């Protein structure tokens, strides 16, 4: 209620808070404040909020030691930048997220360095796969985006023209029925802000939820969905469309035998398994594996029809694939951004696999300066490695025979495929950056699908 009340001294109160009043005027406003309930309440609210912000700020500090690491990395980057001879390298670094750039900077100085700081290795390996995915979108992706933008522009112009024509028809008495969408049957309540469900998703405004745990047995896996939340989809979010204005968040846990890679898919019962939770051409290539026993949060977009009667109809799929080892590499005349292909053996079968090749050459560098390095790391002491050097359009040369890349898949779960690149030029020492990713062969997934019908949704308890 206090928010509804106002006081004519409000502006002066803000100015007093900001310390912008002359001393005499400030004393006058202070006198008013001390005698006015509204201003007192405002003032104490301001003080409380300000204290909270300041406390929060003082509690948010870099952990000890990290500042030094960041500073050293920054100095490395600055040193690189200062040396104009390394402009190609700087451009490359500009394409890498901060933490990798520093690693890359060190690698330039020590081109044969093959190991990262051990204390961070786990994280590096986990996160490098994201970089791999990023770099999968190379010039072709940019071109596609440009085409996409052009197309979107043309569609927008077409729509405008359509609206203009339709208005013209309406004015001339030949009205066109333009809106055939069904009427809204869901009453969307006022948003209730709930804490976020993890750092990646941020706060969401939950409209309805269901907290009854459901356990599904899907093949070798047991999926527990512990909480379902429905929120308004953010218009700025990827994949948003007016037909699917809701986001469904599913929190749960997967338990399944180790030695396999698992992925999830969620969707409406009549939608195909492929294409919802694993959008993108790399859906079955460089996968985002799910750790057995670890909690997950997945989400999908839903239409009003999917939530008819405040009930959610849901299809859940688990895709599992054995972690496989490379049996052989077969590299055709590769172009930047094309795919390697070959066959793998692991977990009791032969599967074709494909991996998108990365364009990591520095912008402006000629193909002769770039080459691809593929190596496989295992838990065994020996390391197998194939060195594929590119000259003039990624011509292939294997430094070691294919045989080195064949290994027994008796322990398939330990394999990590490493992709990297080498930039070379007669005038420059070699640099090397490694990218690690657990890979799953395309077509190797086995799909287990289950359907949950009519899960009741209720407004969240405040």
């Amino acid at each position, binding site marked *: 209620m206090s928010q509804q009340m106002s006081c004519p001294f409000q502006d002066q109160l803000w100015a007093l808070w900001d310390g912008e009043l002359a001393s005499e005027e400030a004393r006058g406003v202070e006198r008013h404040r001390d005698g006015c309930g509204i201003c007192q309440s405002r003032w104490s609210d301001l003080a409380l*909020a300000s204290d*909270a912000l300041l406390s*929060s700020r003082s*509690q*948010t500090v870099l952990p000890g030691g990290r500042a030094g690491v960041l500073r050293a990395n920054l100095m490395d980057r600055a040193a690189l930048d200062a040396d104009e001879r390394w402009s190609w390298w700087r451009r490359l670094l500009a394409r890498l997220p901060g933490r990798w750039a520093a690693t890359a900077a060190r690698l330039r100085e020590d081109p044969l360095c093959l190991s990262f700081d051990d204390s961070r290795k786990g994280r590096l390996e986990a996160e490098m796969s994201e970089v791999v995915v990023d770099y999968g979108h190379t010039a072709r992706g940019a071109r596609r985006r440009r085409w996409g933008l052009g197309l979107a522009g043309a569609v927008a112009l077409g729509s405008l023209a359509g609206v203009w024509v339709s208005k013209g028809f309406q004015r001339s008495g030949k009205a066109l029925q333009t809106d055939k969408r069904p009427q809204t049957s869901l009453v969307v309540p006022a948003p209730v802000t709930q804490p976020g469900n993890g750092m990646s*998703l*941020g706060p969401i405004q939950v409209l309805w939820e269901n907290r009854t745990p459901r356990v599904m047995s899907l093949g070798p896996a047991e999926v527990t969905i512990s909480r379902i939340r429905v929120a308004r989809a953010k218009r700025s979010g990827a994949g948003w469309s007016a037909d699917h204005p809701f986001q469904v968040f599913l929190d749960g846990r997967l338990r399944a035998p180790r030695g396999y890679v698992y992925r999830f898919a969620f969707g409406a019962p009549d939608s195909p398994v492929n294409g919802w939770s694993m*959008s993108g051409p790399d859906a079955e290539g460089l996968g985002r*594996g799910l750790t057995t026993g670890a909690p997950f949060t997945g989400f999908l977009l839903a239409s009003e029809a999917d939530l008819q009667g405040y009930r959610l109809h849901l299809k859940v799929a688990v895709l599992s694939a054995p972690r496989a080892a490379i049996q052989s590499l077969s590299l055709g005349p590769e172009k930047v951004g094309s795919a390697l292909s070959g066959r793998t053996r692991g977990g009791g079968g032969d599967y074709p696999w494909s991996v998108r090749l990365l364009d990591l050459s520095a912008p402006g560098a000629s193909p002769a300066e770039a080459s691809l390095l593929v190596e496989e790391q295992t838990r065994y002491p020996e390391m197998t490695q194939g060195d594929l050097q590119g000259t003039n359009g990624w011509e292939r040369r294997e430094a070691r025979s294919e045989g080195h890349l064949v290994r027994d898949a008796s322990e398939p779960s330990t394999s990590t495929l490493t992709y990297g690149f080498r930039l070379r030029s007669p005038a420059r020492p070699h640099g090397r950056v490694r990218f690690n990713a657990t890979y799953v062969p395309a077509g190797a997934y086995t799909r287990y699908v289950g359907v949950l019908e009519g899960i009741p949704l209720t407004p969240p308890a405040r």
Partner: protein
Amino acid sequence: MQMPTDEQLTYRMVEGEREALGLLFDRHHPALYSFLWHLVGDPTAAEDLVQESFARLWHSRRRVDPRRSLRAWLFTLARNAALNHLKRRGRETPFTSLSEGELRRVSEVPDTTLSGSPEAALVSGCLRDVVRQALQVLPEEQRVAVLLREAEGCSYREVGEVLGCSEGNARVITCRARQALRSTLLPRLREEEEPCPSR
């Protein structure tokens, strides 16, 4: 010995002196880290973005005017870096389960920023979360404005420079942000006066 001012350090940095950049980093990284943490909510990303912001400062040093507020320039770079990061993050995680790396980050992020007793850590962690959640509800401009003005003590002119608007507009945006915080932050703070539940 007298500490060099920001202006002096900026002149030196513009001349290409790396050590000046290091000194500016030492001086401003705590504010930038806190600002970025409140914007992106991820300590690891905030670390990267701090480094990224200073790297961009170095790359764009020839465009820096040492007579103007370096702090505003830095916060502008940080804000842009954070916006890019959030956009990228939005693109990266559509329709997919969290990756192993993300899951690990979420579950294993140690709260190494805190010291003292576990209870103190818990309570202060709660306060940070409460503040961040309350800020998340605000439009991005208001969030930036109130953080800069209240937490970092920036002038309205600096806030305006960061937001790319006039000083008057910055004043209006900050005022709206404060009013919005009354309804988002204060009820939570009053709730939090109750003991924070263990997680």
